[in-house]
């Protein structure tokens, strides 16, 4: 079935299908699909992807009534269970959770940071069937943990979430994606940081082999705000992490980090893209991967420095360990600099585990497998030791131990 037929058939179950402006935008998107079918060579969003699975999918969505927001009775800590992409409304003096509205539909595309040809974002816009909006009110400092639950097999979730951190607010956001059913979750997070606000965003991904997670985020930072994102991908199923950040006012920062642990035939595609659109801003993009068996990964990083963005600091780093001759990791760092007073760098190092280090450790009595595991742990030591949340640190350590137990 074509994208158009799929859309028309399921239109009544898709958000905002009565809105004429949105309808008109969606027709344009359908045209993009019809006319650009599908240039894998020149489209980063399509590399190493089983296109058939994601383009010729059978649309299925269930509305669940089980959504809940729990204020854990601990001050400033909220637990949310999002079911099939939905979340109940909630309001107190610190946060407000609502459904997304028509006006939130296309609010991320102003600076064209997300390319028009990102088919997964376009699919999200076309088939949008779930999502919520969370506003952190001015000068509040809170923690939110969101467990993203999918209730059934063969669901296609197209979810859009908006996060707004009002002036002077601070949010620690932990999102867990741990699903075992055979579904597709295509999620777009649009994040807005007002002046002097801060968002520390942790994403823990640990899905089973049949679950496909496509997650895209777009953050925009106003003056003196900081967005930090840390992605821990332990999934055995396909994951796409594409994260875009715009530094739109002075002295704002974006720190996009990720670690992925792959095995078997699994694939992950990753991208980080930071657009510096104001002076005195900083960005950091660091992804590390450990790949075993026949797994494959890609990572594209991109720093774009606008001509007004003087005194920019922008750093990129990509590192990978290949534990098998059959694993592959393709990394492409890019810098586009139009300002003359900047400090920017990029680097990429991918290869097998250091045999000299293995020999050194074994020569002190450590077994080969123990030496390999200690070197894998040391490879990501900096990222793991920087987690200042004890509970998170324990969760990640347990998942790491589970991954290492399969390394032979």
């Amino acid at each position, binding site marked *: 079935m074509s994208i158009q037929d799929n859309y028309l058939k399921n239109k009544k179950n898709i958000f905002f299908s009565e809105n004429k402006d949105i309808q008109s935008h969606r027709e344009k998107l359908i045209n993009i699909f019809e006319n650009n079918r599908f240039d894998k060579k020149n489209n980063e969003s399509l590399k190493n992807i089983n296109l058939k699975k994601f383009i010729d999918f059978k649309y299925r969505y269930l509305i669940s009534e089980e959504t809940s927001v729990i204020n854990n009775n601990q001050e400033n800590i909220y637990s949310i269970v999002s079911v099939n992409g939905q979340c109940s409304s909630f309001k107190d003096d610190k946060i407000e959770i609502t459904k997304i509205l028509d006006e939130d539909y296309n609010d991320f595309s102003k600076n064209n940071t997300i390319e028009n040809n990102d088919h997964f974002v376009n699919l999200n816009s076309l088939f949008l069937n779930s999502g919520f909006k969370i506003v952190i009110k001015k000068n509040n400092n809170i923690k939110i943990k969101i467990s993203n639950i999918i209730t059934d097999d063969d669901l296609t979730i197209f979810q859009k979430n908006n996060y707004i951190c009002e002036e002077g607010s601070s949010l620690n956001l932990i999102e867990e994606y741990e699903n075992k059913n055979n579904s597709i979750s295509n999620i777009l997070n649009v994040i807005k940081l007002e002046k002097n606000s801060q968002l520390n965003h942790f994403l823990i991904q640990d899905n089973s082999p049949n679950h496909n997670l496509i997650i895209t985020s777009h953050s925009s930072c106003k003056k003196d705000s900081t967005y930090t994102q840390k992605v821990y991908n332990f999934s055995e199923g396909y994951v796409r992490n594409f994260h875009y950040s715009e530094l739109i006012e002075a002295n704002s920062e974006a720190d996009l980090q990720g670690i992925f642990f792959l095995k078997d035939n699994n694939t992950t595609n990753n991208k980080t893209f930071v657009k510096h659109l104001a002076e005195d801003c900083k960005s950091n993009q660091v992804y590390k991967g450990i790949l075993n068996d026949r797994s494959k990964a890609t990572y594209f990083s991109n720093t774009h420095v606008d001509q007004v963005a003087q005194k920019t600091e922008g750093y990129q780093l990509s590192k990978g360990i290949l534990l098998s001759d059959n694993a592959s990791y393709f990394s492409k760092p890019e810098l586009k600099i139009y300002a003359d007073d900047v400090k920017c760098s990029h680097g990429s190092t991918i290869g097998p585990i*250091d045999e000299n280090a293995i*020999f*050194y*450790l*074994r020569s*002190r*009595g450590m077994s*080969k497998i*123990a030496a390999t595991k200690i070197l894998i*742990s040391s490879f990501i030591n900096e990222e793991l030791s920087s987690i200042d949340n004890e509970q998170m640190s324990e969760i990640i350590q347990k998942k790491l131990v589970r991954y290492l137990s399969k390394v032979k």
Partner: protein
Amino acid sequence: MFLEIKDLSVKIENKNILKGLNLNINKGEVHAIMGPNGSGKSTLANVLAGKEDYEIINGRINFKENDLFDLNIEERAQEGMFLAFQYPVEIPGVNITPFLHSAINSKRKRMNEEEIDNLSFAKLLKSKASDLGINIDMLKRSVNTGFSGGEKKRYEILQMSILNPDLAILDETDSGLDIDALKIVTDGVNKLKTKDNSFLIITHYQKLLDYIKPDYVHVMVNGSIVKSGGSEIAAEIEKDGFQKFQ
């Protein structure tokens, strides 16, 4: 015989490096091997420690009644062999203390000895480090990471004194050391020397042998030992170089 190397020939990437080398070391003996660059000294050290890049063409090595080739790298270490590396590898993110603790316990396990607990190990490490003039802060760092050349060598000797090997191979431990560091390192070695352990010291220069007195000195040229004797050979080399042995 503690270590018996018989007719050992080794090649790497189709290049013959060791050519019928023979060497016997008894318990309690200190042997020094001297030789010019490229004579195969470090290859011998690496082959003894079990580095897998080399192809053994001929010969055998017995270590403490074991056929050495039946033991993998870690089993050799656990049996009491220790190589102090010429170029110790930097391993960022692997902290010195837990690494050494794990190393000593893997040896104890093989010897059916009780594992050493955290507290006892910390005390042992602190005291050995102090003997070698190693700052306690250094023990909080990653293995060899950011160490100066002298610190790396000192740290090799610290590991040696913790693991207390039966046979220690020192591969050009003197290279890159200033005179003060050389004294500290050689003092560490001398303290460790007993009638039950042996040392194989690989060096270019006699200087090291002024501080660690060898029982035997061997001259290695072009992959085999061409002359053996006492410390007078070292003096001879210091005076005339290796030319006359080639």
